[in-house]
């Protein structure tokens, strides 16, 4: 238990008239890549919002969510703001809506960089921030950083926007990176690049990853351990290889069978 970076125990999320997530328990260790598989309405994104303390006020969380030793549920907003960044940062599906359309990309990345430098009592002057922004752009393998810094979100491709969103998340130096359907809006060739980038960054930095997706094959590439959710409940959990080849639950079996039907068609066997 001591080595768990994230520990979720009996998490239930409910509105006054509906239970959205029920009695969910799982944990993620430092440096682990954990995948959540679920179809629409499974509660997978709500779970990630509960971990970051970003639930809508109408949704009441009960249970325990411990992140880096601190309890999230019931924590005051001030402490949550510090933890979002210090402990956890999120990359969402659509980078176009996650980025400010009216602000050059360089300044958007500089924001979280400056806040972290101040928080940790380091030099947060202009030159220091610019150096960090430059280093982050290189880290997410963005070409022509000088041009990119001055560009607006609509001026770059979807893949480049998602790299910028990843750079902003990393700017916080979080210990847990949450990626919620980060490649769903992207073309397949761009998706492959972003998946490779996320996996290698998480490994380089030694941080944990919570990767949420409806796409079994993508989760299988990224995650070491997975959890399958349906209608707000955990259906199955285990090593990715095991769940995606020898699923125990009948719902997981039907998902894996469906994914494998399209996967096998790609072999082009007569």
């Amino acid at each position, binding site marked *: 238990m001591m080595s768990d970076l994230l520990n979720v125990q009996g998490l239930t999320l409910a509105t006054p008239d509906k239970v959205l997530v029920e009695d969910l328990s799982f944990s993620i260790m430092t440096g682990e890549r954990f995948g959540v598989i679920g179809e629409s309405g499974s509660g997978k994104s709500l779970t990630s919002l509960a971990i970051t303390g970003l639930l809508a006020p109408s949704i009441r969380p009960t249970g325990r969510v411990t992140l880096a030793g601190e309890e999230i549920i019931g924590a005051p907003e001030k402490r949550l703001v510090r933890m979002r960044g210090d402990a956890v940062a999120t990359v969402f599906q659509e980078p176009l809506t996650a980025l400010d359309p009216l602000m050059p990309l360089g300044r958007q990345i500089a924001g979280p960089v400056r806040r972290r430098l101040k928080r940790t009592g380091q030099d947060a002057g202009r030159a220091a921030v610019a150096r960090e922004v430059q280093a982050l752009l290189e880290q997410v393998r963005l070409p022509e950083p000088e041009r990119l810094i001055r560009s607006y979100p609509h001026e770059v491709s979807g893949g480049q926007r998602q790299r910028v969103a990843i750079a902003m998340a990393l700017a916080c130096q979080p210990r847990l990176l949450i990626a919620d359907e980060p490649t769903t809006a992207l*073309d397949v060739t761009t998706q492959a690049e972003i998946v490779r980038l996320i996996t290698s960054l998480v490994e380089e930095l030694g941080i944990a990853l919570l990767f949420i997706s409806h796409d079994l094959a993508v989760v299988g590439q990224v995650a070491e351990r997975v959890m399958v959710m349906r209608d707000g409940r955990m259906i199955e959990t285990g090593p990715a290889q095991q769940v995606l080849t020898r699923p125990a639950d009948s719902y997981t079996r039907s998902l894996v069978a469906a994914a494998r039907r399209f996967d096998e068609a790609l072999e082009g066997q007569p």
Partner: protein
Amino acid sequence: MTLMSVENVGFAYGKGRRVLEDISFTVPRGSNVGLVGESGSGKSTLLRLMLGLDSPQQGRILFDGAPLEARDRRYMQGYRKRVQAVFQDPYSSLNPAHRIGRIVTEPLRSLKVPGDHRKMAEEAIASVGLSADTLDRFPHQFSGGQRQRIAIARAIVARPELVLADEAVSALDLSTRVRVVDLFEEISERMTMIFVSHDIGVVAALCDQMVVLDRGRIVEAGATKEILRNPQHAYTKSLLASIPRMPEGSVTL
């Protein structure tokens, strides 16, 4: 026998850059052809031209041996009887204020198809696996997968020869998607289909022929199995290599 043939088609919006360049391929009667490409490949524009919503500036499209006259109203009325479409989003393609019966029989009315429309709608709705009482209900009473079945019923009710499907399963959850693909497979035995999709797995499961588009040009076309096994063009190779694959190992389901 060729049902549709696209010959050296070129297209640009206004005075902009050419979005389609020298596109040629044929759709044999009874076949399933997949048009595959990423965003910006021109696949949606090509679909618009095949539906007669726009006319190519270069080349031509032949349907059943005669040119598709997109600007000829009389021609288009006949064309729509023979060619129908299913779109990506079943939430925006069904009028929320109309009962399903009225939605499904719409092509019969606008195309002035003679006969008992209610009976034809019942047949169409049964062939997509929904019960007859579906016709008396409204779109909001159905899930995404059921709505897409309704959209398919509307597309096949006038017994077209060709159905064009534009990302018709892309918005559906995996469990639903596999069932709607089964339905398309079943329907395609009775008619010719063109599937426009970025999802190569779905095209691979459904289409015997495949056309790969990149930035407005055809980079590769032919038998789906051949292309999957032995892609020739560098773009096709990188596209196929990018598709995330399920982990290997002995599978027990």
